């Protein structure tokens, strides 16, 4: 879709932050090159979700900086971050339960507005035929997999410069995970993405670069091919658990 926007990269430099007085991220350095899909792996409580929330402005960044296409996102409110072109698909889908499928997609166009929103909505419903069949149904009545499709669909409508996606595979059947990632790859073919996953094998298949996060720090990083060996990944995790 957004071929003209593939020139954007995301850089986190020494990002430190957390909730209230507790610090979760201790100087995180991550770089996402234009068009690149980057996986963030790591054990529970490593700070993966917190890192995405820091990018989106949902938590305060106490030190360090976050840049999108060279411009700082640090210190912006969440809605301002969205306006700069960041789409964040949160953990647990978080679709609007009382809105229909189409209303959910329309709500995603809040910032960009414009006339061609309907085209994007049509594109989403085409990419996910199950959503197309249920377009008038309230999102609260959808299955978990359908809600995840809808959450991805909202990101499509946002026409982002970069996508952040948190635990897309959580609680879903393997066949559904495969389908979702397949669609995701097509819909965001040229858009850089940060993919947080607890399921390393899925993430490694769809990303070109990997960061392993633990205790709020980057413990290992490298091309995905380096992590495909089970051993290497275990080492990174083991180092991470330290």
């Amino acid at each position: 879709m957004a071929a003209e926007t593939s020139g954007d990269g995301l850089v986190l430099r020494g990002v430190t932050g957390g909730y209230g007085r507790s610090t979760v991220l201790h100087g995180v350095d991550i770089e996402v090159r234009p068009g690149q899909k980057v996986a963030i792996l790591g054990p529970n409580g490593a700070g993966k979700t917190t890192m995405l929330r820091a990018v989106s402005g949902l938590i305060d960044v106490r030190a360090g900086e976050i840049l999108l296409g060279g411009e700082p996102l640090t210190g912006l409110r969440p809605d301002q971050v969205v306006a700069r072109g960041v789409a964040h698909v949160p953990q647990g889908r978080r679709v609007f339960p009382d809105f229909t499928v189409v209303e959910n997609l329309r709500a995603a166009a809040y910032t960009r507005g414009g006339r061609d929103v309907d085209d994007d909505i049509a594109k989403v419903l085409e990419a996910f035929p199950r959503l197309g069949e249920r377009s008038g149904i309230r999102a609260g009545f959808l299955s978990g997999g359908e809600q995840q499709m809808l959450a991805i669909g909202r990101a499509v409508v946002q026409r982002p410069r970069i996508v952040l996606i948190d635990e897309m595979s959580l609680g879903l059947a393997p066949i559904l995970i495969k389908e979702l990632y397949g669609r995701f790859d097509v819909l965001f073919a040229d858009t850089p993405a940060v993919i947080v996953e607890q399921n390393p094998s899925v993430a490694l298949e769809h990303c070109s670069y990997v960061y392993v996060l633990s205790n709020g720090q980057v413990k290992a990083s490298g091309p995905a091919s380096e992590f495909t060996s089970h051993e290497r990944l275990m080492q990174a995790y083991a180092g991470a658990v330290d």
Partner: protein
Amino acid sequence: MSAFLQAIVNGLMTGGVYALLALSIALIFKTMDAVNFATASMGAFCAFLFFQVGTILNLGWGAGLAVSIVGAVLLGWAVERGIVRPLGSGDLFRLVLATMGLDIVLNNATQIFFGSGVQNINAPLPAGGVAIAGLNIDLTRLVILGVAVAGAIVLGVVLRYSNLGVGMRAYAQDPQAATLMGVPARTVSRWTWIISSLLGLIAAIMVASVSVLSVGFLQGTFISAFTAAVLGGLSSLPGAVAGGFILGVLEALSIAYAPRAVTIALPVLIILVVLLIRPAGLFGRLSASRA
């Protein structure tokens, strides 16, 4: 039979105002999870502006309406900016307490600015009545019903079709997800209070038109509107409208058929019954605490 029908008609006409003020309460509860106990004094203050400019300064109703609308917008904006936002989203009880304090402040401000006397006002509404099928229909109350219904419809259209309305409804369902769709929390909060204030103004003008203008004149209606909102589920806007009309009709029936004490206690009785039998109200849903 005709007494029964007459009571229903009277009830529907009173219910319109309850519905409008209940919408003002429910709109804020839906987004803020808090009841605004200054609803009545905010509306009353602005209604004073309307009648002060319109009749007492004799500048005409158009001027009164313009000044009071500007007043209601500014008041809603100021309350959000000066009280709601600084209090933050932590402990909601603080916000509820703050609105109680605001109620006292505004009632006293009304007294200082507009005096403590009781003013009978000549509302710019048609007077008299017509008889239709043996029922007596008061024209003033019919117009009030029309205004209330129109107000509810305009609110519904704005919430359903405007970008802001979609954002407000999304925010009410899941504030954080709405934020991630680019809906600014401040904008939602600001317009929630401004629109609620405008609804209060309309309801207050309507009530004053058929009663009197005095400090605290809207308090009784607030109790009824609050009851109507609870009956409808507090966070449901259609519920608030339905609750308003149901309460109006029940009240009129109690006036026709029950001892006066029952009419006076009716709102409290209804709240009690709702809490005992259906705590979520007619249209509301019991929500687990927000994730």
